[in-house]
């Protein structure tokens, strides 16, 4: 107690209420796409510029095909909104995305935005109700562009993105920039947990007539609560099963027969309990559980709660006015506090769900601790591998070929190291696939660096092992989409590419040997077809580029290596970059000669 919302979300308290006021105003001004207002902060005289977006209660602006208007988003301006671990791209509500795209042109050009950027003023994108999704997507748009971090405040906003969406936000470290205020019973923040239906339309119609002021007191619909909350409850229970470590395989079978809403909360949620207290929650799984459980029916009858779920959507301004002054805020992260739960009116079953959500985060932290211990071991193994590679140069063969021959003790030790390392990285890979590590794991500098080091040093050995046992005959080439290449390398490569903002597949220097081996095999099989010639040229170009940026070590150029022998055997007309590569081979040879002399 005692902390203010502003402290917890990193924004001055003075901004919140005016932002909410502007958001409500903008929502009901359909003639303007957005409203702008500058708010002066009293104590330091700085200014915050708030942009708030207009809304729409037309069903077509909420739903669409396919079900839930599911739209993959990770392209162009939203390239970060994807999973780096086979989870696919983030999904957002396509109707919300379309409305955002209608706005973004004018928003980018707004002189107030330019001015705020020049004067280094904090920018806040705010949205009430259906203005919320636009504020969220606009904030993301500018975060992707790396403009000074904008903030996002929403009030009674529907959910926008799926699990990967939230995962990507947390991975990028953007999650804290988003704050969503939600009233205890407000139906709108829950509505996207349920598929669009006649009940949806009834709700939207009701608000439309209310906001249009054509009808001050429209007759509230009824009977929708059971449908919307039933579906929401299905989503919450499904997620709870996972949090609770459910091992019953029938869960997956059942899931394949029902279509649950893909949408999940992300960012920081501030629940208004209705008695002056605010509860701040960041754990996304806990948010989902609270979102569903605190709106469950209690002592009062369904009709009463149903009416409240509509009324509370219009109650943000008055509620926030009361709460923000009182500083009665409880943060739920770090374990559910009982007093808070009484304010939210949660059942014992909801308490178990919250504890499971908390335990899930603890488990991820424990897994990270376990992996941290691995990192030291990985360093040690990689150092041994580095020495192995260095020693192998003396014979002018290189470690790739030495490993492929498996004649020496060193080759054997390297093979054992290779398997040790594979065991540890495969374990990491599996944890990532199950989201069992913190979301920002793949964004951590030391992890990307160590992974890249591992990939460049050890993947050639996996390739050597693959071609040594002629495994291509069983499975096809080492590098084919979803083929025999171990996934751990694919994952690690994507981390680097994502980090460098490069297209996927552009950092495949660790695949150099696989390209060479496969070309050798294919030439024997097919001869010098056009396609083969192009591949030879690609290998030459890659070699020069990768040696140039040091992502590929020059020991591939050792005279007795598979590559040099293969390349020398190529007919001259197939080697356009002949001079350049001969020169590289010559330089390498000299370096080794000098090295051995010393």
């Amino acid at each position, binding site marked *: 107690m005692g902390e203010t919302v502003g402290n917890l979300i990193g924004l001055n308290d003075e901004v919140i209420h005016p932002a909410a006021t502007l958001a409500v105003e903008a929502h009901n001004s359909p003639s303007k796409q957005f409203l702008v207002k500058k708010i002066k902060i009293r104590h330091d005289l700085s200014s915050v510029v708030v942009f708030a977006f207009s809304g729409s209660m037309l069903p077509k602006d909420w739903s669409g095909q396919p079900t839930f208007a599911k739209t993959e988003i990770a392209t162009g301006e939203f390239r970060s909104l994807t999973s780096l671990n086979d989870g696919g791209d983030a999904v957002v509500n396509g109707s919300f995305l379309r409305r955002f795209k209608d706005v973004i042109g004018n928003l980018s050009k707004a002189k107030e935005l330019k001015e705020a950027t020049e004067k280094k003023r904090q920018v806040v994108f705010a949205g009430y109700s259906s203005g919320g999704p636009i504020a969220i997507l606009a904030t993301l748009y500018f975060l992707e562009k790396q403009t000074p971090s904008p903030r996002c405040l929403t009030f009674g906003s529907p959910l926008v993105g799926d699990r990967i969406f939230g995962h990507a936000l947390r991975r990028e470290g953007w999650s804290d920039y988003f704050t969503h205020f939600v009233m205890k019973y407000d139906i709108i923040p829950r509505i996207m947990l349920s598929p669009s239906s006649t009940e949806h339309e009834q709700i939207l119609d009701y608000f439309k007539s209310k906001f249009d002021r054509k009808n001050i007191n429209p007759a509230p619909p009824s009977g929708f*609560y*059971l449908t919307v*909350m*039933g*579906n929401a*409850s*299905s989503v919450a*229970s*499904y997620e709870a*099963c996972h*949090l*609770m*470590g*459910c*091992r*019953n*395989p*029938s*869960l*997956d*079978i*059942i899931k*394949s*027969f*029902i279509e*649950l809403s893909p949408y999940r909360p992300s960012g920081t949620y501030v629940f208004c309990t209705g008695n002056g207290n605010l509860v701040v929650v960041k754990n996304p799984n806990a948010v989902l559980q609270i979102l569903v459980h605190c709106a*469950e*029916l*209690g002592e009062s009858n369904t009709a009463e709660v149903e009416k409240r779920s509509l009324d509370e959507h219009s109650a943000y301004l008055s509620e926030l006015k009361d709460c923000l002054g009182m500083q009665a805020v409880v943060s739920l992260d770090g374990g*559910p506090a*009982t007093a808070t*739960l*009484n304010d939210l*009116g*949660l*059942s*014992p*079953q*909801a*308490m*178990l*769900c919250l*504890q*499971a959500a908390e*335990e899930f985060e*603890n*488990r991820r932290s*424990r897994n990270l601790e376990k992996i941290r211990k691995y990192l030291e071991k990985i360093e040690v193994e990689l150092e041994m591998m580095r020495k192995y590679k260095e020693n192998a140069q003396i014979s002018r063969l290189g470690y790739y070929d030495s490993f492929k021959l*498996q004649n020496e003790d060193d080759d*054997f030790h390297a093979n*054992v190291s290779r*398997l*040790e390392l*594979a*065991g*540890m990285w*495969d*374990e990491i890979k*599996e944890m990532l696939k199950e989201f*069992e590590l913190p979301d920002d794991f793949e964004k951590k500098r030391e992890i990307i660096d160590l992974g890249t080091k591992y990939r460049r040093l050890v993947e050639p050995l996996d390739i050597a092992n693959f071609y040594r046992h002629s495994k291509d005959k069983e499975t096809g080439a080492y590098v084919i989409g979803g083929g025999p290449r171990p996934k751990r390398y694919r994952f690690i490569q994507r981390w680097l590419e994502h980090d460098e903002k490069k297209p996927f597949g552009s950092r495949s220097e660790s695949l150099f040997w696989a390209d060479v081996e496969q070309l050798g095999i294919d030439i024997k099989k097919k001869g010098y077809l056009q396609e083969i010639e192009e591949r030879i040229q690609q290998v030459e170009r890659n070699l020069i580029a990768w040696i140039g940026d040091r992502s590929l070590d020059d020991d591939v150029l050792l005279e007795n290596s598979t590559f040099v022998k293969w390349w020398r055997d190529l007919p001259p007309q197939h080697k356009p970059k002949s001079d350049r590569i001969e020169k590289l081979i010559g330089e390498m040879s000299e370096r080794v000669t000098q090295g051995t002399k010393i």
Partner: protein
Amino acid sequence: MKRRRMNQVPLFSSAGEQAKMLVTSNLIDAAWAKIPELQRGQSALPSSVQTMIDHPTPNSTIVVFAPLPDSTQYPLPQGGDLVPYPDFDFLGTKEWPSVSINRAALTLFESLKNHLYGLKTELNKREGQLIITGHSLGGSIASLFTLYLLSSMDKESKCRPICITFGSPLIGNFALQHSHWNSFFLHLVSDKDPLPTLFLSSGRSAPTSSHSQATAYKPFGTYLLCSEIGCACFDDPDLILKILTVASSEVAGGLLQVVDYGEILRNLKNRAICKGPQLAGERFAYPFSDGIVMELKTIGIDPAKHNIDTTRMEAEARTLAKKTKASDAKELNDIKKYMVMLEWYKKKSKEANKCYYDCFKNGDFQRDVRIEEFMGQLTTYWEDMVAQAERKPQKEGASFRTAWFQSATTFRRMVEPLDIAIFYRDGGRDYINNGRSPLYKLLEKLYDEAAKNTTREGPDSKNKKVSVLLTDDSCFWAHVEDAILSCQSLNHANSTPEQRESSWKNLVEFGKYVTKQIENFAVSPEIFLEQSSFMKWWRMYEASIDAFRNFYTSPLVNFMKSHKYDDYGLPEEA
């Protein structure tokens, strides 16, 4: 009740949440929806169970089985006993190989078989979702039909089935606990419904002792158990049986009560979004046991009163939680690592001009101690794989084995010689009958079965690879050791003529065996290394021939005497 020890991570029971997810989704509604309709309709089949097929969407199919209204009330005048049904033995496991089915259900199933066969053929062609559902005895037919369908579906089938029954009696003595088929079955049972427990309360089949288990009913699949105030999902057969037994003792006498599952579902749906009478108090200190007690009480079971051991349940959940995809990945790489270690040992031995078999038997290298450790790890791993396969129903177990039997064969060929070495080093005789572990026997049996079904490569292609090959017969060294013992007995001064004769016979047999191996290129060329036990045997044998049977000859004797083995395994000149 014992409490969770400090430092242990908290566990949770998801029985309540899974049930809630089910009743709030529309899957069960969709499965139930057609049943009352079918019961009201005209009877198309001359049977007390009617069936219909429907396609709610182009990509989904629903098959419904429902008893005629009057047979719902008096469904099973008799027929509560279990009858062996060999047609379903594909569900049997090693422990319970033969499958028995409830007589009433079986009689119905058999009477509908022609119709069901046609239905199966039609469904096998379909893609997408398939819901098979049924009420009371119709549910039993739905379950049997689903099993029948699953047994004929191949891996490539694009049809995804789920079987949902309402108030169906238990149907058989198989539990499917270790089969992935188990997850295709969902049984809804109300605590007010006397039907599911009809046979249990009759006392004919209650599992009073472990002996009677072979003939007792076992539930399979996931049970969604419901009461007036809530529901919970369980899939542990013993627990389900216990809960059903408790319920049956409490509904006894209400036999004529008809349970309306449509009404039950409506009630549960409403309940699912209600907070209930109590609000959360303090945090739960023991989430698993507190949770499961809550869940059991919801469906009318008091764990203390009915002797349900939640501590044991938590311990089992804890064991399960330890095994993850991540830990499996680690284990698999460890297994590969141990095999690499052994390959290296073999290679090192060869460099010293010895067979790894002999090196290990004589303890030549320092690293031998670790070799035993790797052998142990590998053996444990493969024993576990074999045990897993045996717990699955026959057919599934077979395809599970196919996935790994190649690696298992390499393991057997690599490691069994080392076990043979230990056996003879410690003075054993006749390894094959006295020393061989069931694991190796089983792996070899699997290999032989697979070899029968595939056309093997011709010896020519094998010749090229023979230098890196392991000896095919993992018992080769046992034969060699026994042959050495035969030679000794032949030469021994105290041997009786009968003993000599029998030893000689054994040696002749051994000669034939080796000749065959050589002709097929089935032995590693390493056996001809100067210091190998095989060469040791040859020198003894050669001496015996010279001493006792001067002019004896055989293909092997010729092969050995003419040093043809120098070329064995070398690539032929082109």
